[in-house]
């Protein structure tokens, strides 16, 4: 098969043995980056506890965990405003939390409770938080790419400088609508950022079995869309690229694609590391990628720069875990939606 001769075109970004060093941190950024580290820890531990709820049989809705990919959501979120419009996908816990969603409302939603962010009607795959700019996530692969393009059309008609963002994976770039949307956005100069979290897998299938190249940004070149490809496990690299692209979009330069190369530590759906939709994963790969963990690299950078001590880091992590444990308790106690919601929410307009 042709893939025997397949070579990565990502200049080492797909190789977990590279890009493992601690991030280099300026002292002046210390306080701000401690806040972002905390945000990444909140995402990590919220998803870890959601995984435990799946194991315990308490969460039944399909839960697609993004553990290992936290830097992409957090890095892009730092460049966004609450008036921007962000859309997610099946794996969007991190996007929701990074933009300002609370662990309690997310966990309650995963448990199907009325206090959940979608009032218990959506579950893990249908999240919503308009007050902080998160306008919805859905699991049909690629579906929010044209929707974000339309949100960008709305922004253009509104005037002003707000942007729309679509988060999706490398699998979505195999959907025709990704290309239709890039073309439409390019032709109409729409203010949209396409963020591809290229984690090198779609469900259980390696990108080398699905595409002739692992470099997603080549599609942006075909559609005359500006793009950057970065190490998605480097918070500072993601932030810098998002800043460059979003600044351009706000100034009227038209759409852009950000490709962030990353890796998920868990399978496609559910909490297992070694099983991906029934297919055994190479644990050596998972272990290698854990050495490139975005939280580890940021923490080590903060330690190396003398911004935080090991004890302080341990205390921070304990505090985050305690907070999320409380969130789980609150969510488990919450009520289920009233049965009337089943019928009353079908239409917004009533006679």
């Amino acid at each position, binding site marked *: 098969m042709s893939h025997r001769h397949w070579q990565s075109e990502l200049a080492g970004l797909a190789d977990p043995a590279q890009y493992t060093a601690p991030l280099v941190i300026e002292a002046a950024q210390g306080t701000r980056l401690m806040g972002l580290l905390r945000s990444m820890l909140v995402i990590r531990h919220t998803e870890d506890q959601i995984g435990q709820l799946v194991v315990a049989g308490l969460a039944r809705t399909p839960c697609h965990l993004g553990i290992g990919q936290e830097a992409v959501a957090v890095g892009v979120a730092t460049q966004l405003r609450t008036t921007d*419009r962000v*859309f997610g996908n099946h794996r969007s816990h991190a996007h929701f939390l990074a933009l300002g969603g609370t662990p309690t409302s997310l966990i309650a939603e995963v448990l199907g409770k009325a206090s*959940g962010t*979608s*009032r*218990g*009607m*959506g579950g893990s795959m*249908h999240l*919503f938080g*308009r007050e902080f700019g998160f*306008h*919805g996530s*859905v699991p*049909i692969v690629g*579906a929010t*790419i*044209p*929707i*974000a*393009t*339309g*949100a*960008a*059309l*709305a*922004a253009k*008609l509104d005037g002003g400088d707000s942007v*729309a963002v679509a988060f999706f994976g490398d699998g979505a770039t195999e959907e*025709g*609508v990704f290309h*239709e*949307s890039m*073309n*439409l956005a390019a*032709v*109409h100069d729409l203010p949209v950022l396409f963020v591809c979290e290229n984690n090198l897998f779609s469900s259980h299938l390696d990108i080398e079995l699905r595409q002739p190249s692992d470099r997603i940004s080549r599609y942006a070149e075909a559609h005359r869309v500006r793009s950057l490809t970065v190490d998605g496990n480097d918070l500072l690299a993601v932030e810098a690229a998002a800043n460059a692209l979003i600044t351009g979009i706000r100034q009227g330069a038209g759409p852009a694609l950000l490709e962030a190369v990353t890796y998920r530590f868990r399978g496609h759906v559910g909490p297992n590391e070694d099983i991906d939709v029934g297919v055994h994963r190479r644990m050596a790969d998972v272990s290698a990628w854990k050495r490139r963990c975005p939280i580890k690299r940021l923490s080590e950078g903060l330690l190396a720069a003398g911004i935080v001590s090991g004890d302080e880091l341990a205390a921070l992590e304990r505090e985050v875990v305690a907070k999320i444990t409380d969130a789980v308790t609150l969510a488990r106690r919450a009520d289920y*939606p009233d049965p009337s*919601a089943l019928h*009353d*929410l*079908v*239409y*917004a*307009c*009533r*006679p």
Partner: protein
Amino acid sequence: MNSQPPAASTETSYGEAIRAGFVHLLSSHREVFAIGQGLWSPWYVGNSMTDLDKLFGKARVIDTPVSELACTGAAVGAALCGYRPIVIHPRMDFMVLAADQIINQAAKWHHMLGGQAIAPVTIRAIINRGGEQGAQHSQALHAWFAHIPGLRVVMPSSVADARDLLVASVLCDDPVLYIDDRWLYERKAVLPAVSERPLAAEGPRVVRSGTDITLVGAGYSSWLCEQAAEILAAEGLDAEVIDVRVLNPFDPAVILASVSRTGRLCVVDGGWRNAGWAGEVIASVAEALDPRQLKSSPRRITLPNAPAPTSRMLEADYYIDAGHVAAAARTMLAARETAS
């Protein structure tokens, strides 16, 4: 705008009435825009959108790349962000490429996000049967879409509805599939002043009163029922005609009341027979009425279960006309004479 205001007695065509709906919406509601293929073409959608781009600008009347799915999705996205877009699919067949955005997205977001998001998008699909257009340019897929909870489906038949149901669809906070039919474009009537009515209050309507039999249709089929009723009237047979207008959510109350009086139901549908719209109407009546109220078995007149042919000779066999409807009604009423 139209070059001059029509005199009070001037008749307007169905196609012109659709255009009047667009003019009203684009003039009175700044959150409305139109997007789709062929909108800058003088012929793609008949006379129903002529020169709208020149009147309202190409920023609000947007002709697009050949991307039904992305353009429909973009309309859904803009609808989620405060706009009321109208997506135009010049052939309903082409809209099939946009099914994900209509069925999985627009129809679901309000429900699955707990009522917090609305997608007030109107998807306009045009049925363009006949004319040797063949199997992929002439389908009537209303039954498919009327199956989807959360998606309102309307089929205007009258000239006034061509305009007013478009206006009501666009101003409704739910996603609406508005289906018009090129075979209605030359239907003419005096058009009353435009009125903005809530779509949720609209439903089937008696368009001709009668006592012997209830004829039910939607869109072009409803017009066939009216023409058949004229034929039957000349023979002394008194048919009631009900124009369904709104296929989803479907309220059969008007049809039930009619059939409980006439005892006879004939449903005419420009779609296919199997799992079709006519079957839904008959089932709604059959499960609600006492069988003793029916004087004959309900009957449906539909397209045969075959793709549309291209050759005109086969088209003549394929499509329904008013004569077929009148003949079926005559047969059902003849059974009455035999029985009594």
